[in-house]
């Protein structure tokens, strides 16, 4: 099944549930009408939260740049002795 079909089915199911709530009137209708807005806003907030958390926990590796320079120097040295002309960057 294509992914978009899965997502649309999910939305259809949620809409069906919402219409059911409207008809059954378990929750006062005025509240039920607002539920989609609450849903979209919570989804937005959840997204922002995930971005924020991810940003705070973003893994960095400053030591890798240093190690890379060491590796480059090691390689250049190796090639100098083997006659491969790597020149300079």
């Amino acid at each position, binding site marked *: 099944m294509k992914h978009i079909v899965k997502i649309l089915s999910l939305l259809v199911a949620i809409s069906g549930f919402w219409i059911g709530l409207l008809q059954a009137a378990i929750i006062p209708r005025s509240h039920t009408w607002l539920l989609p807005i609450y849903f979209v806003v919570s989804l937005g907030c959840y*997204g922002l939260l995930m971005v924020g958390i991810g940003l705070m926990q*973003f*893994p960095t*590796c400053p030591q890798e740049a240093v190690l*890379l320079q060491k590796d480059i120097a090691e390689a250049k040295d190796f090639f100098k002795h*083997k006659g*491969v*002309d790597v020149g300079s960057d």
Partner: protein
Amino acid sequence: MADENESKGEKKYKYSIIIPTYNERLNIAIIVYLIFKHLRDVDFEIIVVDDGSPDGTQEIVKQLQQLYGEDRILLRARAKKLGLGTAYIHGLKHATGDFVVIMDADLSHHPKYLPSFIKKQLETNASIVTGTRYVKGGGVHGWNLMRKLTSRGANVLAQTLLWPGVSDLTGSFRLYKKSALEDVISSCVSKGYVFQMEMIVRATRKGYHIEEVPITFVDRVFGTSKLGGSEIVEYLKGLVYLLLTT
């Protein structure tokens, strides 16, 4: 020696490492050195797909072939810049390994992670092992706050819309079973980093077993802004395309 391996129940696999290059005269030599350094007991070949670099990349590769052997380093060049996807397809045609590794030539991908890719695949029998920069043990160096923010935002959006099953969608440091790569690449049409996304999303949809290993990524393109408005538009278009067609 073959008996030794057989009695241990181990099969020796061959790995083809495809590296597309364009003006990577210095970096290609360093990458080759590092690959040989970190894959000492592994049967592998390096396939350099150069798109007619004017800086002498191919000359360096030929010198490296003299040093390491033409059976270990294959130069399969093309006349001009023809794009990443076709570079992989071109390299694949010449690959004789059981597995194919794709990686960048600019040293943002460090060959020291190759053993961990291989180990992960052998442990889990995964069809694809992809490097991720976004988990503990991985990381990025050289990105400012804005860049990290866009990356994170793009990732959350992609996760919400596509449910891709991997944490790093745009990464291009990956190990594939040769048959898996051939299968997935034939159905991908995008360009650039959207191509990398399309590869991994299509592989997920097809049900391939995908594992991740942490990698560190040292961004070598200092100072230039690789994330302009047009890149963001490209990305969003790519997301919508993948949402609708995978």
